C-alpha cells in the first residue's frame, strides 16, 4: 500500500499549490506515473479519491492519470532504451525498484555496453503535470 503514501504526497502538493494560487476549487489534476515505479493504478486512484474526499475544494475534481513510458540513456555510450528491453528483472527486483526507482542502477545495465551509468530520461515516478482550478467561479 505504498501507493497511499504517494497519493497523499500528491494531495498535499496540490493543496499547497492551490493555496499559493488562491484557487477556491480544483477542476482537473493531470498526473503522470512513471512506468519504472510500476504503481498500481487502481489503488493509487482509489487512494487519491479517498484522500480528496476530505477536502471540499476537490468536490468536482477530475483526475487524469497517464502512464509515462520509461526511457533510459546510457552516459557511457549514448544508447537509449526502454524498460521492456531490459532483461533479468524478476519479481523481487521489480518490487525493489517499485519502492525506490533509483535502484534501477543496482539491477539494470545498458543493453549495449553493460554500463550502470545511465540516466532515467523520463518515466521515473509520480509527477503532477498540471492543476486547473477556479478563483471564485472564474477559471484559471
Amino acid at each position, binding site marked *: 500500500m505504498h501507493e497511499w503514501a504517494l497519493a*497523499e504526497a500528491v494531495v498535499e*502538493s496540490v493543496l499547497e*499549490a492551490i493555496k499559493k494560487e488562491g484557487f477556491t476549487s480544483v477542476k482537473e489534476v493531470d498526473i503522470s506515473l512513471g512506468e519504472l515505479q510500476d504503481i498500481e493504478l487502481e489503488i493509487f486512484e482509489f487512494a487519491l479519491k479517498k484522500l480528496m474526499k476530505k477536502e471540499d475544494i476537490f468536490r468536482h475534481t477530475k483526475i487524469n492519470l497517464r502512464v509515462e513510458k520509461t526511457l533510459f540513456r546510457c552516459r557511457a555510450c549514448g544508447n537509449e532504451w526502454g524498460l521492456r528491453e531490459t532483461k533479468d528483472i524478476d519479481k523481487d527486483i521489480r518490487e525493489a525498484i517499485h519502492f525506490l526507482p533509483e535502484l534501477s542502477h543496482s539491477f539494470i545495465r545498458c543493453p549495449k555496453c553493460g554500463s*550502470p*551509468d545511465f540516466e532515467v530520461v523520463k518515466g*521515473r515516478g509520480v509527477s503532477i503535470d498540471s492543476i486547473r482550478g477556479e478563483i471564485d467561479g472564474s477559471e484559471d
Partner: protein
Amino acid sequence: MDPRTSVIGKRLEKVKRIIAVSGGKGGVGKSVISSLLALALSESGKKVGLLDLDLSSPSDHIILGVKNLYPEEEYGIIPPEFQGIRFMSITLFAKDEPTPLRGGDVSNAIRELLCITRWEDLDFLIIDMPPGIGDELFEAIELLKRCEFILVTIPSRVAFETVKKLALILREIKSPIIGVIENMKRGENDFIPKECERLNLDYLGSVRFDEKLEDSIGDSEKIKESKVFEDILRISRFLMEGQRDLSRCT
C-alpha cells in the same frame, strides 16, 4: 511538479528531535557513532529511529548486525524494528547489491525514502550522513527543517579541517550544531577541544579508540560491552538531559 517534498514534514511530525551525524570526512566513524548513539538512546528508554542516508556505502546494518529485516507496507513504509530501534536504510531494498548513484539520483532516492517512510512517535531520529558537503547534506537541510547536527572528527588536523568547513557552512545557512564528538581518541591531546573552543563549537566529549571494536561489529550485545559504547552512552546523556560531557575534555 514533484509532489514528494510536500508530505515529508507530515511524515516526521511525530518525531521530537532529528539529529544528523555528519563530519564531512570519510572514515572518521560517523556510522559507528550514529548506530551506537541510536543504541545508547534506545537502551536509556527513548524511542529511537535510525536512518542510514549513506546511499552508496550504507553500513549501520553491518555494525548493528541487522539481518532479514523487511519494511512493512501500511499506507507507506513502516521502518522495521531492531533492538527497539526503528531502522531505515537503502539496504532494506537493495540487499547486498551496489548502488552506483550520481548526484541527481541521490537526491531523488532521499526524497523518495523520506516521502514513503512513516516514522511513528520518536524521541530521536538519528541520521547517519555520508561523507562530503554535497547533495545528501543539502537535501537533509532542505527537507528536514528541524535537523540539528552532531559533527564527528578524529584527533587529526586533516579531519578537523573538513569539520571546520562544514561548521562554517552550517552556520552560514543557520542550521543548528549540537556540537563535536572526537572519535578514536588515543592518549592525551587537547587539539580538538581547543579548536572547538576557538570556533565556539560545543565539545560533546571523546570516544576512546578501541582496537577490539572490530571483533564486536555485527553483534550489538558485544558492542554494548565495548569502551566505545560506554563513551557514547555518556555523550547520549547530554542529548537527553542537556548536560555536556566534559569528563574526557583534556
